[in-house]
């Protein structure tokens, strides 16, 4: 790689920096831009389109949709926590048919790249969902949410067991268009996330999305009971970023050819760059969107400046850069 290191300082404000080729790919899905929304943090894109042009970012990852309409859980569904939040939405949504008819149609017409996230209560449901999407136009990739800790049936966290995880991926693969890459979304709540990544890769996943929320809980000190109606909820936001970067690093280390969509607490371009350096090919911005509705666009712009300041001319060169061997000058130093 040839790079002229532009150090930060007075000119580090983004002025006069060369443009960076931000294109990247998640398996066969080629995208000109690397920053996506995160499932469940952008609905189906329409609301965010009021704050920035959603066709200018990598794309919209839609809220995980199930086969049938779902009311979700009772409220309270959220609690704020230090540098993060808990949620327990319970996958509220219109069901796949209404989703295709309304949300997906709108996204297609709007010209936004779309990653459809699906969630099921059984291997069969995942298969059916994939089949429903089979001949639908305008889907860049399918993200398979096998890790949501919020589903009503607590036994069913597919992402926590290598076998169930791979069964789901197989069912989705079998039933979906081979040209549409399948991204398995993993949970950090496992003893060894690499094992899960390996098993979904073997089952046919073309990429992984890392990480979903981690299970947490808050006690409401007025009611002296759990703050969420769902008792536990998913922890997200900057609080979990170090955990997410670690998961991306571990998976990229073990499976350097498996594309990773990285996420977890990304707040700015520097945060996004950590994920890229750790091995992510693209990133999603989730919870921070609640703080800043234009966050995905802003993060993408900041990421470009951050790359340019470090002399990168393409995003692709930066993917996994933190895993490189010792730099030449470091080697020289050691030999002294």
């Amino acid at each position, binding site marked *: 790689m040839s790079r002229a290191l532009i150090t930060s300082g007075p000119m580090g404000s983004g002025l006069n920096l060369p443009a960076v080729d931000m294109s990247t790919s998640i398996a066969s899905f080629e995208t000109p831009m690397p920053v996506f929304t995160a499932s*469940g*943090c*952008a*609905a189906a894109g329409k*609301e*965010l389109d*009021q*704050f920035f042009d959603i066709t200018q970012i990598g794309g919209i990852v839609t*809220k995980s949709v199930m086969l*049938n*309409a*779902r*009311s*979700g*859980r*009772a*409220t*309270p*569904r*959220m609690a*704020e926590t*230090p*540098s*993060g*939040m808990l*949620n327990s*939405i319970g996958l*509220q*949504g219109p*069901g796949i048919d209404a989703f295709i008819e309304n949300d997906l149609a709108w996204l297609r017409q709007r010209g936004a790249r779309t990653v459809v996230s699906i969630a099921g*209560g059984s291997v069969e449901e995942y298969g059916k969902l994939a089949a429903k999407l089979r001949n639908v136009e305008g889907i860049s990739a399918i993200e398979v949410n096998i890790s949501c800790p919020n589903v*009503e*049936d607590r036994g069913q966290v597919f992402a926590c067991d290598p076998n169930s995880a791979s069964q789901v991926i197989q069912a989705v693969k079998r039933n979906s268009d081979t040209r549409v890459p399948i991204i398995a979304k993993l949970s950090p709540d496992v003893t060894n996330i690499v094992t899960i990544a390996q098993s979904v890769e073997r089952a046919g996943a073309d990429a992984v999305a890392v990480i979903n929320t981690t299970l947490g809980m808050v006690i409401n000190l007025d009611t002296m009971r759990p703050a969420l*109606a769902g008792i536990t909820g998913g922890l997200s*936001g*900057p609080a979990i970023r170090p955990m997410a970067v670690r998961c991306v690093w571990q998976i990229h280390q073990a499976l350097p050819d498996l594309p990773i969509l990285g996420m977890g607490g990304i*707040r*700015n371009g520097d945060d996004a760059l950590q994920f890229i350096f750790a091995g992510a090919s693209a990133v999603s911005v989730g*919870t*921070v*969107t*609640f*703080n*800043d*509705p*234009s966050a995905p666009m802003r993060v993408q712009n900041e990421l470009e400046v951050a790359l340019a300041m470090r002399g990168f001319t393409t995003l692709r060169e930066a993917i996994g850069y933190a895993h490189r061997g010792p730099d030449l000058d470091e080697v020289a130093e050691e030999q002294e």
Partner: protein
Amino acid sequence: MAPLQLTGQVLDVRRAGMYTVLSLTAPGLAERTKPGHFLNIGIGGDESGLLLRRSFAIYQAQSRGVYGGSVDIVVGVHGKGTQWLVERRRHDNLSIVGPLGKPFTLPKDPANCILVGGGYGTAPLFMLADQLRERGCRVDVIAGAATEEKLFGTLEIKRAASTLTVTTEDGSMGVQGRVTDVLDDIITKTSADVIYACGPMGMLAAVANVAAARGVYAQCSVEESMACGIGVCMTCVLPVIGDDGITRMVRSCVEGPVFRGDRVRWSEVGTVPTDALGAPTEGH
């Protein structure tokens, strides 16, 4: 019209009883504001551990003036975020998103309106009262709270109202009791056509019940915990009956905060009614 995201400057901070009124520059926002809109304010800057914005009803909106547009909000200290907010000083910057939500619907023709505010819930009723009177409506206001100090703006709202009735649970001001203890009478006296209400959930439920019993159309502005305020997170839902008669868990930030009183399933707020669309079925 789409909400704006902007940085506003604190123009003025003044105490009003238990509350703090913040005036903020907000170019473009005032022009878009209708009575019942709210805005969202970021707490504590980029390194703050408090990630979520806080929501406040827009109390006043001045679209002209030296500052090219400003808005006022009324803040009651509840927890860490509101505490931080009332500590702001003149010239501090605040991150603002708004106007948000569905505002109150105004009657096309002159009508007799009762405005009911609980605690700081009177805040959005000022602009509403003004606009109703501009349309030739009669406006009667009921302001209620647990105690006198928790009332907001009772002196000022008098100006826009034909009558003002104050209730406090401890009798420290006005009638001892709750707003619903006087509502029925005032409906009769004023031959009310519409009731507008903003305040705690319990009060809204009670007001909606009285309105229903009397056959008066009611609009209630609810307050649910919101993570995003812009419709993308699904945390702020409550069970609302649609035009088709089906109950859905509906986002109060974009489909509310103002709802028709007879559409919210008040006694089931905080639950998912078993007949709601997509409600968990037995054995699931």
